[in-house]
């Protein structure tokens, strides 16, 4: 955050205030009314924090399951050529299904509530993570593996110390794509399947009261949170691994 960005954000807020005060309040709330609504939702009872906490909890559980299973499936199918021939097309097929399309199915199979939302987050994150892990395994330099084998590294150690570090750029791409997909699944699923809390639920429930300020607040909260998750989870790992090991290449 440099000085320039702060000035830009401030001037943007002022502009927004000017525009919203010149047209109808109902359709475009002013920054002041969004701030007022934020305060109402924080005090006396911190409803907003509850929504955020609930969404974060679901995201972390769903995403962690996706990460563990996705990386495992990616590693296994990357190691076994025959398995890859079967898993790869299935994954290509599954990845083409919009994650949200699973929600009606999950609603029938498991019903309203946390389980459906977490499963949707998992389904969103799993495929990009597994797919990229597998791609990463393909590009590992064979010489590295041969060298490790000759020096007597066993299977598990070989995976942990050679395959995973060598395919780290793909792992991070997958993790980053995965969290984006998980976020999308979270918000969509919360609108369709949440029963009381969650940011998606908050935005959707505000529609019944024409509470546009709360919707804006929800959108801003999602923006800030997804920026933070990317910063905290992914960029930290990226800096500690591939940046430190100088494996970063130009990527779009």
């Amino acid at each position: 955050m440099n000085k320039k960005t702060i000035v830009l954000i401030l001037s943007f807020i002022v502009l927004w205030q000017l525009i919203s005060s010149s047209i109808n309040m109902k359709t475009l709330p002013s920054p002041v009314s969004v701030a007022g609504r934020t305060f109402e939702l924080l005090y006396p009872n911190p409803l907003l924090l509850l929504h955020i906490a609930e969404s974060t909890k679901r995201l972390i559980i769903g995403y962690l399951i996706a990460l563990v299973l996705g990386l495992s499936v990616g590693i296994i199918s990357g190691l076994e050529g025959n398995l890859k021939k079967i898993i790869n097309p299935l994954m290509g097929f599954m990845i083409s299904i919009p994650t949200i399309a699973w929600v009606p199915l999950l609603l029938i199979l498991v019903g309203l509530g946390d389980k459906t939302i977490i499963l949707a987050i998992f389904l969103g994150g799993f495929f990009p993570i597994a797919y990229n892990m597998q791609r990463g395994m393909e590009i590992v330099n064979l010489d590295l593996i041969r060298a490790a084998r000759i020096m007597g590294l066993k299977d598990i150690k070989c995976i942990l110390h050679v395959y995973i570090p060598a395919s780290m750029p793909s792992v991070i791409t997958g993790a980053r794509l995965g969290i984006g997909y998980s976020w999308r699944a979270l918000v969509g699923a919360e609108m369709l399947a949440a029963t009381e809390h969650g940011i998606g639920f908050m935005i959707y429930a505000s529609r019944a009261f024409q509470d546009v300020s709360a919707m804006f607040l929800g959108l801003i909260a999602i923006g800030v949170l997804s920026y933070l998750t990317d910063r905290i989870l992914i960029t930290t790992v990226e800096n500690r691994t591939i940046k430190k090991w100088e494996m970063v290449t130009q990527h779009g």
Partner: protein
Amino acid sequence: MKARKINKILSFMAPILLFFIIWQIVGVLDLMDTTLLSKPTKVFERIIQLIQTTNKKTIIEHSIESIMRTTIALFLATTIGCSLGILLGLKKNIEETINPLITFLMPIPGIAWAPLFITWIGFGNPTIISVGTLAAFFPIVYNTSLGIKSINKEIIWSASIMGANRRKIIKDIILPGSLPHITTGFKLGLARSWRTVIAVEMLAATTGGLGYMVFDAREYLDVTTVYAGIILMAFLYLLVENTLIKELENKTIKRWGMIT
């Protein structure tokens, strides 16, 4: 060439068929609750039924509705997104002003905008198409401006020294040079608008669309129709990706040798 193509399609389809066969076996042997699991043959029958149905919208009409919405949204997003992206790529001071806003708005899922648009412009097509456009817009702007910035400045300098005017530079250097990035943006935009249109159809559609069909089937606990919708969505997307997009890439950036 032809034989290799068929071979490729076969090796892609075989595991998916295998998956359907296993699913069928599980369904026939009654290993799990078949009212929830359904069976591929039942799903297939349902698709035929939904094609021939006369008292409701057919599955083809639903698909066409979703495809039309996605097409319009993608067209709008590409037109607005590419123009703004070119502007941002060329004018550095405008880019610095707008970029923070774009980076902030880009990760917000399209569907999060849906309730806002429903309040503003009501249920139905206007909301679905606007939200679809918004979802596709950000990756397109971002990638277009990235593509323009990635062009080697020396090529532009040498062209202008040799007397090319601004219009010619944009048409003959900047646009072709940034096409690989623009194609990436377009592909991302397609994926995101398709997904978002399906999602918003669940919330805001009143007449039809695949998302509407699937969500409506849920009300009657009609698992078979939900499976039919999901499978159709995947096939439609794969079809578009492997025919239209591949063709577009072959005709442009592959022919120019720009794919790495």
